[in-house]
């Protein structure tokens, strides 16, 4: 067992897979000698060499296109897009090429690649470098979308993503990079498409993702000590495939649903979960399902403004109290 930071867990996960399978290769901007702008890939170049860990030019389309060509013909590439906001620059590959090739070819071609990218706010980078865009990928058929909240999940889910034969978009949260967690020794492989109940409870279900998970847990503690409300917190972890069974099971038990989403309001990932619950689990609900999200605005750069925008423990607790206690 070791205590690792989230960023070290990224390197650990990639190294685990590259050591296991020679077909796993890694490319991105400043990922090799520099170890990545977020220092999430330190040591890989030294361990695996310049043929397997490659620096690319500032060419997001070429990075993703090359990853696809390599994946189609036998390799298992990991491609980094430095800031998740930049997937807008190479979105053709994420929306039109990776997820449709197999279907259009009637199953002839494959695309076993992973795109890992730095997602989310909290680093004061301003509106174009702070977005949470996992919902942009959730809505495209044929992709898999993952967003871990802690170092242990980073290793396991990255390994699962590399081993998955489908294109996986792996969202690392920039503000979680320095956070620490216990990671056991040895090989760790998790399962895509599984959510985790990180805090069992009986009065309400709170679904959260990535940075919002520790905030939801903080809110749950506050709710318990100050209001006696016992919340169940679900770390969704995987948007596609979605672990509806865990979420629906939780709502059947607590009869109330809240989501905590860093996405701006419209079409955040929670909208789909609320829709599913309001339909399939309508008769398990004892009150309206409520989404707690960043408002529908670009993010400001100043720290005080950015912090106001994202859901925090106080806002989560206040919303839950108001909703349950009214």
């Amino acid at each position, binding site marked *: 067992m070791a205590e690792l930071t989230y960023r070290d867990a990224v390197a650990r996960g990639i190294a685990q897979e590259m050591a296991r399978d020679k077909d796993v290769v890694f490319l991105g901007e400043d990922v090799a000698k520099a170890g990545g702008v977020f220092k999430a890939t330190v040591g890989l170049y030294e361990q695996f060499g310049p043929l397997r860990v490659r620096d690319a030019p500032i060419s997001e389309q070429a990075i993703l296109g*090359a990853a696809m060509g*390599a994946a189609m013909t036998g*390799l298992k590439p990991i491609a980094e897009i430095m800031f998740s906001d930049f997937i807008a620059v190479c979105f053709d590959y994420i929306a039109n090429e990776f997820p449709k090739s197999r279907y259009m*070819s*009637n*199953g002839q071609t494959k695309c076993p690649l992973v795109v890992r990218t730095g997602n989310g706010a909290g680093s004061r980078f301003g509106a174009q470098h702070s977005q949470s865009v996992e919902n942009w990928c959730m809505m495209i058929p044929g992709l898999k979308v993952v967003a871990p909240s802690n170092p242990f999940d980073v290793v396991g889910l990255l390994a699962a993503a590399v081993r998955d034969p489908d294109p996986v978009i792996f969202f690392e949260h920039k503000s979680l990079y320095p956070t620490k967690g216990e990671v056991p020794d040895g090989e760790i492989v998790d399962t895509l498409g599984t959510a985790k109940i990180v805090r069992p409870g009986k009065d309400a279900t709170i679904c959260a993702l990535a940075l919002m998970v520790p905030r939801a847990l903080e809110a749950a503690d506050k709710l318990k000590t100050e209001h006696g409300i016992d919340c169940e917190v679900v770390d969704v972890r995987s948007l596609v495939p979605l672990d509806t069974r865990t979420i629906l099971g939780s709502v059947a038990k607590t009869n109330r649903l809240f989501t905590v989403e860093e996405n701006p309001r419209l079409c955040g990932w929670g909208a789909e979960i609320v829709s599913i619950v309001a339909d399939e689990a309508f008769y398990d609900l004892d009150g309206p399902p409520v989404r707690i999200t960043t408002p529908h605005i670009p993010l400001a750069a100043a720290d005080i403004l950015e912090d106001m925008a994202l859901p925090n423990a106080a806002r989560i607790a206040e919303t839950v109290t108001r909703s349950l206690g009214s």
Partner: protein
Amino acid sequence: MSKRALELQPVVGGQNDDIGEAKRLELYRSQIRIRDAEQRAFDLFLQNLVKGTSHLSLGQEAIAAGFGCAMQKGDLSFCTYRGHAHTLARGVSVEKVLGELMQRDNGLMRGKGGSMHLTSEEHGVMGSYAIIGAHLPIACGAAWRAQYRGEKDVSVCFFGDGTTNIGAFHEALNFAAVWKLPVIFVCENNLYMEYTPIGDVTAVEYPAADRAAAYGLPGVVIDGNDADIVYREAIQAFDKARSGDGPSLIECLTYRHGGHSRADPAKYRPEGELELWKQRDPIKVYRERLKQFSVAEARIAQIDAAVRKEVDDATEACKAAGMPPAEILFTDVYADGGWAWRN
């Protein structure tokens, strides 16, 4: 009218025969097969049997045939939505291609991809791409895999003159040059970007060749309607790639007889331009070439008849084929063969 149309090399006979009769017959057969199949697709379109959109290569056969015949087994090709010719040139059956255009269950992808996305992994046809320029980086990736594993196959990607102005073209050329990838970029310059003359939207005269220097590559322009010239250039590019000397960018001048797509009667082209280029029709050029190298008329007619038969048989088979069944709507979204996004 573009001056380039007058700069084409004249048909030359009696040269040293570095190509050989067998290869020439192969080159001819490939071209006439493409011509016949594409013409049949046109006719079937008029009978409302070929549906949806369709982009024909009538007049551009020499490029697909020239490169196709230069490829070795294992080489990979990536083309655009104007990809029937390249698919046929790699040996995919006329029946499967027409079947896909006619949206039948016997089509190459059972109707799931359509005319613009012809793919045959077993023939090395690694997709036809409808987003302009998307496949150039993808071809780079396939080449990267060959380089990484020390495998000897080469990736070839075909694209039009319009592609040279999109971002992915420039990213891919730079990427391939910097990493010295075994990839060949073939620009089929048919003088029109969809409905607009390419000169109206491009800063340089030769849209591909004049950009090559920006990527440290030689600019190459060839007569794309002479299959021998295309073939020779292709062999050189393959040799260069296979020996680890990196990518090539080859601009082939050509002309399309039809419109951009089936729906386009190409009335934007100047009077007389089509007629001029029809004098340089690749089939016409190559029939003369064969005669110059003493291939008998009867032999040519034999090839023509065999190709016609293949096209006729394919047509009948496709007319008799059923429609794709509803079940396949949900297959192959994911590698497990299914569609499930939830449990």
